[in-house]
């Protein structure tokens, strides 16, 4: 999960960064789970409440029935006229709380035609029970304020005994009932919270597990970009495997485009340089002012072509994705070639590299840079050229680098000449090649890779060139 410190600012995506996939998934899943659990909680509590109310009312109904049966108890005078049946004053104590003063449990009996109470439970101790009017209905259930100011649930029932209609009301304080509901709500809330947290954790784990292939894809892509792998691992789930395949195709096409550009540059070089050789040799072999002019101008053309070809090549060379090469075989090959080219001079080229090292870039570019340096050294050396490679870390950027040093025992350069030789990106009009060492090309190429070229004087007596280039991080 590291970001590249050297990523150019222009390559960063524009606009606000989008929320991560994992956050989106977890957020949405958590949101709907919370809503679902909350709805379930509300539903459960209301279900419990209505069930409790029904049970409460059922209890009150039993008391009403008991009261009625006590009022019309006619056991002794069974043969008397039912119409003239007298109502017996009930002394109902079906529950001890009807006897306790202001216990919260009350009953009253009144005539339907009059609001004044005929009989009442002992618990009322003479206070009235403010029942709402029942009107013409058979029964009603309602909440009222009891004599002590508490909420009381009251059930009223109309009955007719003889010619008279009575209204019987039984009430009970709801304090315990609501406490029950509240307790139940608390339990439900607690349970659902625990379930919710568990769910969110499960969602989080599921998302992480589900998105793992994406993380793998990203790591694989990053490895390709850093040159640690040549292509993306395509062993991925069906949904994103095509993406990896497409990316691999893109990498291949990127390589092909660069390769084609390079071939074009090569063809252009070949196409121009051969006729230029002909013109300049023809002119040099002839005499007269025309021949002189042609020779002079063809020399200028030659320098210009060389200059532009180098720039074009470098432009084509910029960052092929996912390329690296071992330094040792490239340098060994070069040194072998130099040995053949400079065999007349009898120069000894010593090569020393500690351990395996990979250059994070094109082998052709490493060959070009080190080739120029070693060629220069061989050209100027008296008898000895030392080539060395060591790994080093760049403290400033924390990147893995390596240093290639090329030293010779030739005449060397003065500090001013050294400064001039590595000046990067020489301007076009300065067609006169400074020292003729081609070192500015090396410096330019090294800079493309985020490296440097430094010239010092060598302990051997001549020039010491140090090329610092990015290395592949060791496994």
């Amino acid at each position: 999960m590291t970001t590249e410190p050297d990523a150019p600012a222009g390559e960063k995506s524009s606009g606000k960064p989008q929320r991560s996939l994992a956050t989106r998934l977890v957020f949405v899943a958590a949101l709907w789970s919370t809503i679902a659990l909350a709805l379930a909680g509300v539903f459960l509590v209301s279900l419990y409440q209505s069930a409790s109310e029904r049970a409460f009312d059922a209890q009150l109904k039993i008391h009403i029935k008991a009261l009625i049966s006590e009022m019309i108890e006619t056991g002794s005078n069974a043969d008397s006229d039912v119409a003239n049946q007298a109502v017996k004053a009930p002394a109902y104590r079906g529950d001890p709380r009807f006897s306790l003063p202001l216990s919260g449990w009350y009953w009253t009996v009144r005539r339907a035609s009059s609001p004044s109470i005929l009989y009442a439970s002992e618990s009322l101790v003479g206070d009235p029970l403010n029942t709402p009017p029942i009107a013409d209905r058979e029964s009603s259930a309602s909440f009222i304020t009891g004599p002590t100011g508490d909420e009381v649930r009251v059930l009223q029932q109309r009955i007719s005994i003889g010619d008279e209609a009575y209204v019987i009301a039984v009430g009970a304080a709801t304090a315990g009932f609501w406490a029950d509901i509240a307790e139940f709500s608390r339990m439900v809330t607690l349970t659902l919270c625990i379930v919710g947290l568990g769910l969110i954790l499960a969602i989080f784990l599921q998302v992480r597990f589900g998105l793992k292939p994406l993380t793998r894809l990203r790591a694989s892509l990053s490895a390709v970009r850093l040159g640690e792998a040549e292509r993306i691992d395509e062993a991925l789930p069906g949904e994103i495997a095509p993406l990896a395949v497409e990316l691999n195709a893109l990498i291949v096409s990127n390589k092909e485009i660069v390769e084609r550009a390079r071939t074009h540059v090569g063809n252009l070089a070949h196409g121009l340089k051969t006729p230029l050789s002909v013109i300049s040799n023809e002119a040099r072999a002839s005499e007269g002012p025309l021949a002189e002019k042609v020779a002079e101008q063809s020399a200028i053309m030659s320098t210009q072509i060389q200059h532009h070809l180098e720039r074009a090549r470098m432009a084509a060379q910029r960052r092929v994705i996912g390329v690296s090469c071992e330094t040792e075989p490239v340098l060994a090959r070069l040194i072998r070639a130099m040995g053949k080219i400079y065999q007349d001079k009898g120069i000894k080229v010593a090569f020393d590299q500690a351990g395996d090292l990979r250059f994070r870039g094109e082998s052709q570019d490493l060959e070009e840079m080190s080739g120029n340096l070693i060629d220069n050294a061989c050209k100027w050396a008296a008898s000895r050229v030392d080539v060395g490679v060591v790994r080093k870390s760049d403290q400033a950027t924390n990147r893995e680098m390596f240093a290639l040093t090329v030293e010779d025992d030739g005449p060397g350069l003065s500090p001013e000449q050294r400064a001039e030789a590595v000046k990067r990106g020489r301007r076009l009009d300065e067609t006169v090649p400074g020292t003729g060492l081609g070192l500015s090309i090396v410096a330019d190429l090294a800079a493309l890779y985020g490296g440097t070229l430094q010239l010092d004087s060598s302990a051997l007596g001549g020039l010491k060139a140090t090329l610092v280039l990015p290395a592949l991080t060791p496994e």
Partner: protein
Amino acid sequence: MRILVVEDDSDLNRQLVSALEEAGYVVDSASDGEEGHFLGDTEPYDAVVLDLGLPTLDGLSVLENWRRDGRTMPVLILTARDRWSDKVAGIDAGADDYVAKPFHMEEVLARVRALVRRAAGHASNELTSGSVRLDLRAGRVTVDGSPIKLTSHEYRLLSYLLHHQGKVISRTELTEHLYDQDFDRDSNTVEVFVGRLRKKIGSDMIETIRGLGYRLGAASDD
């Protein structure tokens, strides 16, 4: 000394041939890879100037084929692709040196001279035997310090014998290296030139080994 030039650009080919001929070499030329490969494979050359970008068969393949078939003559490659990777690929394929285009003819002549000299085992551009001294760079011959004038055939003969001094050189070998491919090999002109050369540099310099050929200088081990 016989040189093969393989270059597809007719102007450059002509320039190379005439410059080499002026420098005292016998030159054959080819304008495509297949022809070049055939000549190099069948004729004994002392050096080859080989362009890498050739039609029909590219220069690198021509060179690889020669080396695979045991052809060891020194080869100078001409290349417009002057990246080190191209040069190293050429050297790895068996080239002995390279010249990047565009080049000056003097450069090519100097490299060819060095290759021929090196192949014969000489370190210096001056070949001497007794009182005879040949300056390869200037193409000048002196005997006891005084310059002598040689025709181009005589110069080639002396140069070849000096490059291989101490060795017995057969008449066939001389003919092969002193004349181009169109020359009538059966003629006995070699003997005529040896006779003329003896008159100019001293009759004891070139020894006739009966039935074998000629030798210049003391016998060498090989």
